[in-house]
């Protein structure tokens, strides 16, 4: 996708210089000079971010070193919550599962949309039909998609998938009903629901590969594979990397699929980190362990922050270069 470069620095610079050159003023001149206007315009942002973002983030840090159950007053417990979480045998299971989910999601969800998009780019008639078909699953509400696939995945010979596979002599497979099958089944459904969006993103990026590059490589006598390898893929590098990072950040916080498909089962095979956080906070019928939940979310956040920084750097360099 082309990101046009407008000379924003040039235009902004004088304004900035003018601002910097302003003399110091008293409150009255501040008001008259428009300080109040800025505040008025910033008010929605300050209120919404203050109440629903900055304050909760600070609160998360505080809660992670407190014991809070909403019944008695919170007490300071130091790093106990972190210790408690790190000592939970389920944590390592959840981390493993989450990594496994991320790995499978990349395995299923990364190459398939790319290949599909590259092929679709070459379609000469009715490309719209291809795009529409690929994108169709994405418009299905995600919860509907999960509940539908849950029904498709029914174990035993009368499940939908098992019946279809039975026609060619395969199965019946346990799908969600087996510790080693459950996670791939979840990822397969998630990929179905999400891959179409990735295809469209790649397709958009492919459309903006300059035709001259292909023309030029043809002058050099390049065949199809060399053109894809030396022109197409390098041009997609940025978008590929960004979808990769977004996918990592997204899969690290996967919740919907394990929650609705399996509730974390069988035998905790699909408990993910976010599901564990949810369990800490909301599972116990007598009141949640909010300290443990926030402690674990902060640890997850620390890991993800690395990816966020990467992502941010990349998009920034993209939009300014």
């Amino acid at each position, binding site marked *: 996708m082309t990101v046009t470069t407008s000379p924003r620095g040039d235009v902004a610079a004088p304004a900035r210089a003018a601002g910097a050159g302003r003399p110091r003023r008293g409150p009255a001149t501040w008001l008259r000079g428009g300080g109040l206007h800025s505040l008025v315009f910033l008010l929605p942002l300050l209120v919404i971010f203050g109440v629903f973002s900055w304050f909760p983030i600070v609160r998360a840090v505080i809660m992670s070193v407190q014991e809070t159950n909403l019944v008695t007053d919170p007490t300071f417990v130091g790093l106990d919550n972190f210790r408690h979480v790190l000592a939970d045998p389920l944590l390592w299971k959840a981390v493993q599962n989450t990594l496994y989910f991320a790995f499978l999601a990349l395995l299923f969800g990364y190459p398939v949309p790319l290949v599909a998009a590259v092929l679709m780019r070459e379609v000469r008639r009715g490309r719209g039909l291809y795009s529409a078909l690929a994108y169709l699953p994405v418009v299905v509400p995600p919860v509907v998609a999960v509940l539908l696939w849950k029904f498709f995945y029914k174990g035993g010979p009368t499940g939908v998938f098992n019946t279809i596979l039975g026609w060619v002599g395969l199965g019946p497979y346990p799908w969600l009903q087996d510790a080693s099958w459950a996670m791939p089944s979840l990822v397969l459904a998630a990929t179905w629901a999400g891959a179409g969006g990735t295809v469209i993103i790649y397709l958009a990026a492919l459309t903006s590969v300059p035709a001259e590059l292909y023309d030029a490589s043809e002058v050099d006598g390049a065949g199809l594979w060399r053109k894809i390898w030396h022109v197409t893929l390098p041009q997609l590098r940025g978008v590929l990397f960004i979808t990769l990072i977004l996918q990592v950040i997204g899969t690290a916080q996967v919740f919907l699929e394990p929650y609705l498909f399996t509730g974390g089962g*069988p035998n905790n095979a699909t408990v993910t980190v976010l599901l564990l956080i949810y369990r800490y906070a909301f599972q116990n019928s007598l009141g*949640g362990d909010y300290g443990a939940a926030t402690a674990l979310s902060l640890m997850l956040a620390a890991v993800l922050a690395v990816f966020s920084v990467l992502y941010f750097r990349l998009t920034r360099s993209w939009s300014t270069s």
Partner: protein
Amino acid sequence: MKSTRKPAALALVGALTAGALAACSGGGDPQDESTNSAGQVTLSVVSLLPGSTEEAVAAFEDQVAEFEKANPDIDVQPEEYEWKATTFAAQLAGGTLPDVFEIPFTDAQGLVENGQLADMDAQFRALPYAEQFNPTILEAGTGEDGHVYAIPAKNAYPVALHYNRQLFESAGLDPDSPPTTWEQVREYAKKIADANPGVAGYATMTQNNTGGWQLTAQTVARGGRTVETDADQKATATLDNPGTQETLQFLHDLRWEDESMGGNFLLDWGSINQEFAAGQVGMFTSGSDIYTSLVQTNAVDPDTYGLAPIPLSDAPESATLTGGTLAGVPANVDEGVKDAAIKWIDFFYLNKLVDEDRAVADAETLAKNDQPVGTPVLPMFSKEQYELNQEWIADYVNVPLDQMTAFTDAMFDLPLAGEPSQKTQEVYALLDPVVQAVLTDEGADIDALLADANTQAQALLDQG
């Protein structure tokens, strides 16, 4: 122009933020303000499970209308509700529970200790039949101070065996003689599964703490106990007792040797009811009273339903696990709401058990709307009172009692055992994955799984 625009714009942004916040306080009515100046009380109460049939809703609305007629100063707001271990805490913390909500026996003590239930002692004592309650049942909702916080309300039930008569017939089994031993359960399950591909001859719950609950029930039926409590209330986890081991081995054999447990091993209370009502499950264990909800939410075909006691082994301490539901009121409501709440509890749950006119009127309303009347439960008062009640409503009973005789004939002679009293739901939660492991992993090491769960359970119990 400029001068008029500025205030207008200020007002606009102000309205967008402050106004937006003010608008939030418009709808709904918070629990602690339920009594208004005119003395009118708004009382939110548990209505039915989500997704109940139109007939069930109609019957409930009739009852509400009747109550409001008798109590013109109370405005009842029904709210659908299902107690689930996994969602209750959020509702409790979120203050979204109705003014009269239902909890299982297992949770009352913890809620009382946390100060989350209103002290209903004064209101409860004023009930004319307060002294007649079965003391063991009343105890479940009584705090250490001797005050009654949660009131036995909806039901008290033993865990029983539910079976599908139609599937029995399809497998050449006599639907009038349900299995009385676990060996027979296994044998019948195999026959049902063989005769009906895709159907589970026998199934058991595994999710949302119900896996642990039913594992405990089946353990107790084999003479085991999952937690032993000594005289000082010191609790010891005994998950690795022979009864539990035997139960898991039993499940393992049905699942892997007989392949008679179908293809779905992720079931909880609601979903196993649904599978059963859809004819996908031959036999399963659950509270004896689920027929009502099988009709109200799953539209079960009454002809297919059969009820029997849970089979008991020869072990000396084998018993039937009991459970039940209490009605509670959130701690933060005012006296007016508490007074209204006890009137509703009396009207909706209790009075019909001890007052003939009320019993008949209630049964009439339910029967008129094709709702089940006469589902067998444990007597909340004395056995005599229960039988008297059954006589009052005899004309309206519409549940297939003759298909439940195996259970009703035995129900007063069953040896009963209560659920573990400490960290009950948390220990159940630990057992869910154990049951799931046995049903989904052929090589699951039962002893190792139990040893591991036992260590964790003991750690929970030691926290006190």
